[in-house]
């Protein structure tokens, strides 16, 4: 079937203003939107720039705005977009570098800021023990692929560039609720400020956008409750 695309274009080397390009490609209903993008790039217009790698929703490279919603192009199928033109735009809140490629440096810097690693002293001879119930607490958040869809979708992140961001809180959650981590209190204190967890006002847009179905908002709220329980 024929698919029509309207794609955001901007190249800081030569363009003063962004504009949109229109493309038509043949695609099978079961194909991914990423397959269409590749075909456009390979066959029609090699200047179109976007990131991608795994093509099945595990590397986090190709988050973008698809018809107004943040998502991975490799997870969306042609059959669900039949009929009207598909509009592809770069992930909001981030600076556009070229076309659909945005500058993710601040995103990764903020992830680092939450210290996304286990902090625990001492190494037993074998593994540290952890019950299946304890381990289950992080089962959902370990799915995060750092795609930044949630940040792009979050109305708060879009308005307030100081907000630490949903993905970063998910990363912090993974350590806060890991029974092996010894910095729980410090980690909670770190997020306990107006632009930390308290900036979130439950729009649930992050949860809707997350391609790995992580209950992002619920996780943020769980941290808020933990702060009230342990720090107040």
């Amino acid at each position, binding site marked *: 079937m024929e698919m029509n695309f309207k794609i955001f274009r901007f*190249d800081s080397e030569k363009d003063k203003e962004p504009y949109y390009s229109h493309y038509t490609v043949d695609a099978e209903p079961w194909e991914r939107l990423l397959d269409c993008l590749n075909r456009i790039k390979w066959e029609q217009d090699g200047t179109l720039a976007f990131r991608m790698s*795994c093509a099945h929703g595990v590397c986090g490279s190709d988050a973008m705005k698809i018809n107004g919603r943040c998502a991975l192009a490799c997870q969306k199928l042609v059959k669900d977009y039949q009929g009207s033109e598909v509009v592809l735009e770069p992930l909001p809140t981030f600076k556009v570098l070229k076309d659909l490629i945005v500058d993710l440096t601040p995103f*990764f810097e903020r992830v680092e800021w939450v210290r996304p690693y286990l902090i625990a002293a001492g190494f037993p001879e074998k593994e540290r023990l952890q019950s299946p119930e304890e381990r289950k607490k992080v089962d959902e958040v370990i799915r995060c692929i*750092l795609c930044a869809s949630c940040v792009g979708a979050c109305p708060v992140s879009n308005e307030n560039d100081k907000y630490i961001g949903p993905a970063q809180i998910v990363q912090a959650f*993974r350590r806060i609720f890991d029974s092996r981590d010894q910095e729980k209190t410090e980690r909670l204190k770190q997020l306990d400020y107006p632009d930390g967890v308290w900036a979130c006002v439950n729009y649930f847009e992050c949860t809707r956008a997350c391609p790995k179905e992580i209950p992002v908002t619920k996780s943020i709220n769980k941290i808020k409750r933990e702060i009230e329980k342990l720090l107040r």
Partner: protein
Amino acid sequence: MIFKHDVVIVGTGLAGLRAALEVADEYDVAVISKVYPTRSHSGAAQGGIGASLGNEEPDSWEWHMYDTVKGGDYLTDQDAAETLAKDAPRAIYELEHMGVPFNRTDEGKIAQRAFGGHTRDFGAAPIKRACYAADRTGRVILDTLSSEASRRGIRVYSEFNLVDLLMDKGRAVGLAAYELATGEVHVFHARAILLATGGFGKVYKTTSNCFANTGDGVYLAYRAGIPLQDMEFVQFHPTGIYGLGVLISEAARGEGGVLRNREGRRFMEDYAPTIKDLAPRDMVSRAIITEIRGKRGIDGRDFVNLDLTHLGKQKIEERLSDISSFAKIYVGVDTSTDPIPVSPTCHYMMGGIPTDVDGKVLDMNNTAIHGLYAAGECACISVHGANRLGCNSLLDLVVFGRRAGKMIRLDLEQADWPDLIVNPEVKSLIKLKGILNRNAGEKAVHIRNALQTLMTKNCSVFRDEKGLRRALDELSTLKARYENVVIDDRGKAFNTDIMEAAELESLLGLAEAILVSALARKESRGAHFREDYPERDDANWLKHTLIQRTDEGRRVFYKPVNITRFEPKARTY
């Protein structure tokens, strides 16, 4: 620009990162990668990482070593397999200490599950040896190592593509890399270089591999005159989602899933009576193709079914949720009620850059090349022989990545700074400008599609002389066409167009190495099955293939297999 670091590591998969962590405390180490570290394809690994922890049932490293050797159809170097199996428990505990969120047993230990070709008591029955975190094992190990790397302040150059390996007087002196954001070619001058660029499944049409897996590190080593080892051994994973190649992990069968043909029959009972669906991948892939050729594919078509419906919703949710979501998203299948249509997909390269067990790259005389190391899927130690077992790759990455790091540390105590060659970036600039300034010609996509089709048709699960010769002929035409490759993008920022054209050179060169090695080996062993030579022939072929580009042309030669404990025997399961 010229960057100078004691150690430069190419690749931020598990192999590259684990090596980097080993040297970071003592030396200035930088890692460069095509993609952000957490986007590396190690993150796609699903099923597990093997070690004889014995957390679920008694296990021993000897059994693990035996399985690795037999799984590799006795082409495995047994000193390497011994190192792998013995060091595995330590490596897993280390990952746990770093924070990897493994699933747990009721006692709170690391949970383990069954995987293809892993057995107890030297082949008696399947054993639970794969440690796992749901079906996202690679993802969480990659997260852990990459955040550990940033915690230690390791310098990462993301979206830098290796485009040339700089060698001088038989020594590695540096490399050239293309910075995607700016279009600049930079030179990295180093005392030690480690290649950890992963696999190159993109040589084939249908693959579980990502777009970054074009094997540039392996190809550039080959281009620099370094031999490549055992390139004919290409693993086809039995269960890729039909048509797409997206992987459905062996863990699905490890948890009890079974393959069925159009009659609903569990056909693996006919091919591997003892361990059935958990036979090694080469055997299962051949069985599937044999079923399909016998018109027993589903509806007589070219796929079979992977049936998980009897596992129950809870097990699927807890242990196989990612693959279930792939089935749902890409083929609309609910795995708890319907089977997944699957067929073999190109998955893993057993061959690659020859190294010793400490990551040192070996030249044609089997002596170490000064300053050059390799680890991970791009290397061939050879610990996987003619066929890798599931959950042995992730293990290989952390065991041999660490060993390579240790060796680099040791070597750097003495290694001086090599002189950089004059105009080190010139060769890369000429090549890239050649593409950039060409006005008429053919787009990369056509050549790449033709290459992938020709490799898939002639050099997949089954091969024969006629097909391989035809493929080599066609390949030379494609190489000629590549000389006229054109691109649209003349810009500097994020010119992925030119990088994809450059990667095509890697794919073409690696296809050559695979085809020539496959044509030369006149026997069937592991993943290399020649229909015109269907038997394994230890008398003549129990040896590693090496292929090298020299001034006089391609040269194929061989070296012996290291056999210490297990004499080759017939391989039945």
